[in-house]
C-alpha cells in the first residue's frame, strides 16, 4: 500500500497560507538563510547533484538550466528569474494548490534561484483566472518585503532582490517559456524561434531562468536539507517527489504527492480509493491535453520521466485523467484537439490550419466515412507533419494524444 510522501506539500492544510509567521514556524526561509551563506555556484551544484528536474512538464535538469543561465553572457548587466505560474494544461492543478495554500514555499525558492544565478529581479507570471493564487501570492510578496526576505540587502547579506507579479490574460500558449517572455514584454503571445534559449537571451534580451512553481517549491527544501536527503526520494534518474493531479473516474480525485516511480495502478487503487463505483478501468490521459493515452497494459509501469518516455508515454505536468469503460476515447480526443485548435496562436501555418483540419477530420469518423482506419492513419500522419513544421510545443502537442489514441484505441475509433 503506497502512501503519500509530502515534501513540497508538507505544510498544506497545516498553516494559514496568509501568515508568514506560520510559514516561518515550519522552518520556512531557513533554506534562504542557508543559501545566502553559500556561494551562488555551490547552490547550483547542490541542485544539480540533487537531480531535480523541471516539474512543468519537460523534465529538464533544473541545475543545468541554472548553470547555463548563470554562465551565459558575463557582460550582461542584469539577469532575471521568471516564475512560470501560468498553469493551464488541462487536468493540472498542482501549482494552484501550492500558490493558494503555501505561497511562501515557492517564493522562497524564487529568491534562492535568483541568488544562485546572481539575478536581482524576478517576475512571477501568474495565470489571470487563478484569483485566489493571485491574492495569496501578492500578500506573500508584500510580507516577505516587510520581513526583509526581499528588497535591498536581504538579511544583511548584501544581496538585493525584487519580485514582481505579472498577470496572464487567458492564453494557454503563454505557459510555454519563450512565449511567456514575449507576453511579459507586453506583446501578443506568439512563440519565439529557439535557439536562443532563455538562458542566453530571455526577457528584455537578458539571460533568464524560467522555472515552474512546483520546481521552485523543491528548492528551499533541497538547500535546507541537502542533496542526499532529497535523493532518498524517487529513483536514480527521476529524483524526488511529484505531485499528481488525478481527475475523472476515481473515487477520490485530487492532488497527491508521491515518490517518483509509483505505478498508475498504485495511484488509482492506493491513493484515489480505486475506480469510481468500481467501474472497470479503460484508459488514462497522462500529462493533460498535451499528453498521452495509456491503456490497461500500462497500469503497472513505473511513472518516471524515462520509463514512460521509453514506453511512448509522458509524465508531463503530472495530470492523470482517468477514464472508465463507459467513457468515449473519441470524445476525449476530440476535446483535446478542439483545445489545440482554440489555443493555436496562428503564427505557424501548419499549426493554425492543421489543428482546425484535424478536428474536422476527426469528426468525419462519425459521419459515415468509408475507410475509417485510413482516416485515423491520416490524422496521425498530419499530426506528425504539424509537429515537425511548427515552432513551439503547441504545434508539437497534438501528435501526443493522437498517436497514443491510435496506438491503443484504433478499434474503438473506427467502430
Amino acid at each position, binding site marked *: 500500500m503506497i502512501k503519500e510522501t509530502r515534501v513540497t506539500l508538507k505544510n498544506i492544510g497545516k498553516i494559514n497560507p496568509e501568515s508568514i509567521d506560520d510559514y516561518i514556524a515550519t522552518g520556512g526561509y531557513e533554506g534562504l538563510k542557508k543559501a545566502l551563506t553559500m556561494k551562488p555556484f555551490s547552490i547550483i551544484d547542490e541542485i544539480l547533484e540533487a537531480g531535480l528536474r523541471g516539474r512543468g512538464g519537460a523534465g529538464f535538469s533544473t541545475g543545468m538550466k541554472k548553470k547555463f543561465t548563470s554562465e551565459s553572457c558575463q557582460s550582461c548587466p542584469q539577469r532575471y528569474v521568471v516564475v512560470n505560474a501560468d*498553469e*493551464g*494544461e*488541462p*487536468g*493540472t*492543478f498542482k501549482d*494552484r494548490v501550492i500558490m493558494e495554500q503555501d505561497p511562501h514555499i515557492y517564493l522562497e525558492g524564487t529568491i534562492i534561484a535568483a541568488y544562485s544565478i546572481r539575478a536581482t529581479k524576478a*517576475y512571477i507570471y501568474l*495565470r*489571470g*483566472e*487563478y*484569483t*485566489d493564487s493571485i491574492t495569496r501570492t501578492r500578500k506573500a510578496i508584500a510580507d516577505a518585503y516587510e520581513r526583509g526576505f526581499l528588497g535591498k540587502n536581504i538579511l544583511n547579506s548584501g544581496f538585493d532582490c525584487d519580485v514582481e*507579479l*505579472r*498577470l*496572464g*490574460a*487567458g*492564453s*494557454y500558449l503563454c505557459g510555454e517559456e519563450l512565449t511567456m517572455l514575449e*507576453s*511579459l*514584454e*507586453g*506583446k*501578443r*503571445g506568439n512563440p519565439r524561434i529557439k535557439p536562443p534559449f532563455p538562458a542566453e537571451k530571455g*526577457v528584455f534580451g537578458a539571460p533568464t531562468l524560467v522555472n515552474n512553481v512546483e520546481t521552485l517549491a523543491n528548492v528551499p527544501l533541497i538547500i535546507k536539507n541537502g542533496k542526499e536527503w532529497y535523493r532518498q526520494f524517487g529513483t536514480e534518474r527521476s529524483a524526488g517527489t511529484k505531485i499528481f*493531479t*488525478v*481527475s*475523472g*473516474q476515481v473515487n477520490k*480525485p*485530487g*492532488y497527491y504527492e508521491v515518490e517518483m516511480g509509483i505505478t498508475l495502478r498504485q495511484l488509482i487503487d492506493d491513493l484515489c480509493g480505486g475506480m469510481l463505483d468500481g467501474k472497470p478501468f479503460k484508459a488514462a*490521459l497522462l500529462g*493533460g*491535453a498535451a499528453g498521452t493515452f495509456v491503456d490497461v497494459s500500462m497500469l503497472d509501469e513505473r511513472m518516471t520521466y524515462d520509463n514512460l518516455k521509453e514506453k511512448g508515454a509522458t509524465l508531463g505536468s503530472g*495530470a492523470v*485523467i482517468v*477514464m472508465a469503460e463507459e*467513457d468515449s476515447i473519441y*470524445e*476525449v480526443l476530440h*476535446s*483535446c484537439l478542439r*483545445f489545440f485548435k*482554440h*489555443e493555436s*496562436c496562428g503564427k505557424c501555418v501548419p499549426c493554425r490550419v492543421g489543428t482546425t483540419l484535424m478536428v474536422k477530420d476527426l469528426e468525419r469518423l462519425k459521419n459515415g466515412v468509408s475507410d475509417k482506419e485510413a482516416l485515423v492513419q491520416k490524422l496521425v500522419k498530419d499530426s506528425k507533419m504539424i509537429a515537425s513544421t511548427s515552432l513551439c510545443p503547441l504545434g508539437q502537442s497534438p501528435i501526443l494524444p493522437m498517436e497514443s489514441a491510435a496506438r491503443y484505441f484504433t478499434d474503438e475509433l473506427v467502430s
Partner: protein
Amino acid sequence: MTPEEIISKHPRTNDNLLNILHDLQNNHPEQYLTHEAMDKVAQYLNMTKSSVYGVVDYYSMLSTQPRGKYIIRLCISPVCHIKKASGMLAHLEQTLGIRAGETTSDKLFTIEVAECLGQCQEAPSMMINEKVYNNLTEERIKEILAQYK
C-alpha cells in the same frame, strides 16, 4: 477612478501592459476595454495603438465589447467535458436565453467558455467573475444564478 488615474498607478514600462489592461477592464462597469482607454494606454507606454489593440485582441480574458456585470466562464476542457460540461453549457444558455459569447439584455450576465480552470478534482466547473463554482449540476446552476439576480 478615471482611466488616467488607473493607468498612472502602474510603472511606465511595457511589461506592465497586461496588468494595466486587467485593471482598466475590472474597473469598467461593463468589464471591457474602450478605444479611448486603449489609446491612453498606448500613449502612456509609448506604444502604437495597433500594438495595444493587437494585445487586447489576442488574450481571451480581455474584451473590446461591453459585457455583463457578471461574466460566467464555463470550463469546457477535457476533464469537464467528460463530466458533461456541454450539458451545463446548454442549460446555462437555455436558462439565460443567450448563447456563449453573448450578454443578457439586462446586462447582468455574459456567458463565456473557458479552458481548464484547474478545478478538475470537482468538475464540471465555472467561474462567475472571481468566484469558482464546482461540481455543477443543472439544479446547482439554478441556485447559483439566483444569488446573482
